[in-house]
């Protein structure tokens, strides 16, 4: 049964944007360059803002416009800009991360999408919203971002993964309940902002201590004999 054929064009647009957000999650998994990673992350933020704005327009939920504007400003413009500045100042602009078992990670990603589809199935049955099918997509974005954090060793890629998890949670809130209360949303937005600033401090500390951003080296015991 083709339910998509009977939806208005705006709702079809929301689903298309949801699919594109899922695509950016896969693009994050496949991207090995720091600048490319941050650019894809910025695109994810931009698409997320567009989805939120379209949901706001299609359902008449005014407060979602504010969320969309916040998402666009913070996740598509400000945080990527700040991360890129970190990359330049840390001098890892041309660094390419070596990924072992690249194809395997992508296949694992596909498996995670199937898994989140099955997990979300009972929720989808209960919901009556037009965007209910995108709940599985939002769960998949969270899981894919976790996979990104697990498979990477660079601290900066892990931070991008962490931010992408937040993107997935925000997306889940938008498509399943048309957004959280304004106070909560504002709180989370500024939490993310503060986190981004703190991570910057953490990067420089990490580099000063172990002379690299490779977090695997943190688990090695060393003794400073001065």
């Amino acid at each position, binding site marked *: 049964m083709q339910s*998509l054929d009977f939806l208005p064009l705006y709702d079809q647009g929301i689903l*298309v944007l949801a699919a594109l957000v*899922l*695509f950016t999650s896969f693009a994050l998994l496949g991207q090995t360059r720091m600048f490319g990673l941050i650019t894809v992350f910025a695109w994810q933020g931009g698409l997320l803002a567009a989805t939120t704005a379209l949901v706001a327009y299609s359902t008449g939920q005014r407060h979602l416009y504010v969320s969309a504007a916040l998402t666009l400003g913070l996740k598509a413009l400000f945080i990527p800009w700040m991360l890129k500045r970190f990359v330049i100042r840390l001098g890892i602009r041309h660094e390419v991360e070596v990924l072992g078992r690249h194809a395997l990670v992508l296949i694992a990603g596909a498996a995670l999408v199937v898994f989140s*589809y099955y997990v979300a199935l009972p929720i989808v049955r209960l919901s009556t919203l037009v965007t209910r099918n995108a709940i599985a*997509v939002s769960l998949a974005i969270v899981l894919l971002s976790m996979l990104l954090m697990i498979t990477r060793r660079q601290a900066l890629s892990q931070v991008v993964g962490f931010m992408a998890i937040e993107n997935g949670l925000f997306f889940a809130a938008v498509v399943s309940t048309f957004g959280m209360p304004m106070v909560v949303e504002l709180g989370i937005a500024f939490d993310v902002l503060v986190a981004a600033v703190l991570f910057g401090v953490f990067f420089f500390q990490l580099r000063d201590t172990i002379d690299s951003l490779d977090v695997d080296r943190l688990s090695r015991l060393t003794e400073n004999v001065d």
Partner: protein
Amino acid sequence: MIGWLLALLQTLLFIASAPLLAGWIKRLKCGLENRAAPPVWQPYRDLARLFGKNVVVADTTSWLFRLAPYVIFGAAVLAASVVPLVATHLPTSAIADVIVLVAFFALARFFQALAALDAGTAFGGMGASREMTIASLAEPAMLLVVFTFAVTANTTNLSTAVDHTLGGGFVLRPSFIFIALALLMVAVAETGRIPVDNPATHLELTMIHEAMVLEYSGRHLALIEWANQTKLMIYGVLFVDLFIPWGIAYEISAANVAIGAAAVAAKLAFLGLVLAISETVMAKLRLFRVPGYLGFAFMLGFLGMLSHVILEVG
């Protein structure tokens, strides 16, 4: 009876206009690269020249080498007869579907690779092995595109699929965005265009298609080249049929067929422009990066299938 006659005419038109598409793309590319462009009918001249020349066959080759061009060209003609160009519901499109189309391509490729190995030269073997590597990676992606389309339209038959798209009106499907991209990537790989193979080079260590046809001359070479141009056009028309079929002749009448022909010509001209631009801005990939490229196409096809299941049904 009239249906079969029309199907024959459509297939003839298909094959006859394939070199024109190749010439059009070449002209656009030359324009974009600031070179003096050959006229659009240059491929016809080349084919006529090759047909006029004698055939030189290496002593070491068997009958297979002489048979292969005819099989390759025959498979291309049969494949062209399956794809609706200006009108749907002709008898030829009723007897075969997209999976048969993929099989025709596989048949042609099999004979091409055998013939390349037959002469026993280093280039032939190298080209054949590369072609088979790429084909084995491109075919799953292609079939995934076909399957995703089939579960949406409930058919693998192209005429019925066109009906489904035309009958449903304009629907924005997330899965179609992904499989359209995947189909474009597979088409580029299968027809040997940049970034997978460069159709304009000879005697380089990177060539794939040209390495396989290096031993051919005269009318054999003309048939293979013509089959290759037809293959490019089949992929173009397949894309048009699946994703933008508006304008195709639904019921056979002179006016409808004329509109169908004009529509498909305009759409193919536009696709040619897209291909020419993408070939101009992209560089050829290293051979060992090609599996990554095709893996990405497969991933897109898979995402198309997933987004169909998750977002479009239920």
